[in-house]
């Protein structure tokens, strides 16, 4: 029954359906159609729903299961809009409105000699954000992300990226760890900007222990190792969805991973800085943290 995988929440059927919907559902009925499909996925995708509810319990201590069920709907609703906006941009080149916060850091990032790392999270619309950066900075951006789990979905996304990505944006995958590290180092030496998501570890990538919302977890260590090796700053960047076709791009003060004798200490310091930024962003916009598995394996208190 291999064909049934196509209909799983991460299966390729839904990617085709979303693309079809973007090209067929009139804009003025879209919010209500999305509301129906959001409910469908909240009810039927048990793993995703439970993952989000477990994370909400940690982010919002004292929250009730019933309250978190409604909050989960809000997370799924925002996710539906962001993937919808992403496909619309890719297929029809329609972009949303943008607000920019941290202009001094945005300008500093563009002017950075010797490359820089953008560290972001699975929040808002990171794909659109990377395209936006590529368009605004006129510099080559390499976006590193985890590949789709389902092989058919992975092929579909790769084909869509090849067909629609801007020239200034290159997409690479975090699974080919060793080769990728060298490629990225090379890219930084060519003054390119690397955009990486620093809130989720997928199989095959190096990690470092961290504490998030008081719980033990693992976060990717690659961005910090890269920043240390290439001696480039890390810019925390978050993209928040404000409403229909409206996003806010927030660039925070950059930090560096200082090379010392004790590599672990340097990493721990950088990781603490990053987790503080990530926690503040997620606490403010918990409804846009698209993390569908429990971020910590610690049992709930």
């Amino acid at each position, binding site marked *: 029954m291999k064909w049934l995988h196509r209909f799983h929440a991460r299966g390729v059927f839904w990617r085709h359906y979303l693309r*079809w919907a973007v*090209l*067929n559902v009139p804009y*003025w*009925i879209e919010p209500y159609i999305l509301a129906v499909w959001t409910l469908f996925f909240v009810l039927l995708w048990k793993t995703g729903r439970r993952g989000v509810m477990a994370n909400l319990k940690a982010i919002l201590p004292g929250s009730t299961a019933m309250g978190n069920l409604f909050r989960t709907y809000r997370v799924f609703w925002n996710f539906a809009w962001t993937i919808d906006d992403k496909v619309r941009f890719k297929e029809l080149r329609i*972009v949303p*409105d943008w607000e920019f916060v941290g202009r001094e850091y945005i300008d500093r990032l563009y002017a950075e000699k010797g490359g820089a790392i953008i560290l972001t999270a699975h929040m808002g619309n990171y794909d659109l954000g990377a395209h936006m950066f590529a368009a605004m900075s006129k510099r080559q951006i390499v976006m590193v992300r985890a590949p789709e789990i389902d092989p058919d979905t992975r092929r579909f996304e790769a084909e869509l990226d090849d067909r629609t990505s801007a020239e200034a944006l290159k997409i690479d995958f975090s699974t080919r760890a060793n080769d990728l590290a060298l490629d990225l180092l090379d890219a930084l030496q060519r003054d390119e900007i690397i955009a990486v998501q620093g809130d989720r570890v997928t199989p095959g990538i190096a990690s470092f222990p961290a504490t998030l919302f008081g719980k033990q977890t693992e976060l990717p260590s690659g961005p910090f190792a890269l920043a240390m090796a290439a001696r480039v700053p890390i810019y925390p960047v978050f993209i928040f969805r404000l409403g229909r076709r409206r996003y806010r791009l927030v660039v925070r003060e950059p930090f560096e991973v200082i090379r010392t004798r004790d590599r672990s200490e340097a990493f721990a310091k950088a990781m603490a800085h990053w987790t503080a930024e990530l926690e503040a962003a997620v606490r403010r916009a918990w409804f846009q943290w698209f993390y569908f598995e429990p971020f910590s394996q610690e049992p709930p208190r």
Partner: protein
Amino acid sequence: MNIVRGRADAHWLPARYNFAIFRLYGLVRMRFAKATPADVAMVVDRHQSAIENFTVGAWTTLTLAAFVVSVLVRTWALPFALVAAIPIALVLMHVPILTFGAVFMRRGNNLRMNSIVLILTMSGASLHFAGSTSWVRFAAWQFLAVLAINGIAAVVALVLQGPIERTAAAVGGIKSES
């Protein structure tokens, strides 16, 4: 696609609205809006307005839900019909979209065609229910009345095309970079 940079009040640009009533509303709002400098990039696209899209969607869904209630109450108790009406209306909305989308799948972008088809289908249903003697005729007539008002607004918007374009040009919405 045109983008206005640095002006938050570009939010009200008539060119960011699709239906004529909303275009005129945008023109009025823009006339009285103060220039608001902000670090923003506002897209000039006729489907950009959230308020317009949520309002038109709610209006059609609720009208269709009223038609559904009027049919269901023939066999169901009113409370059940009221509860079921909105989910059924939302499912019914899928029917023309799926049908025409499937028939014209090879065309790719069917957004405009499906929008016209949905409005025409709703108009047909409204004409059908407008002849009824029950309360549902009011729902049907209001739908047709709003369509007629939008038609009049379209004529007015056509006459005011000059001011609409000048408003966009004043904030850089016409000549700004694409």
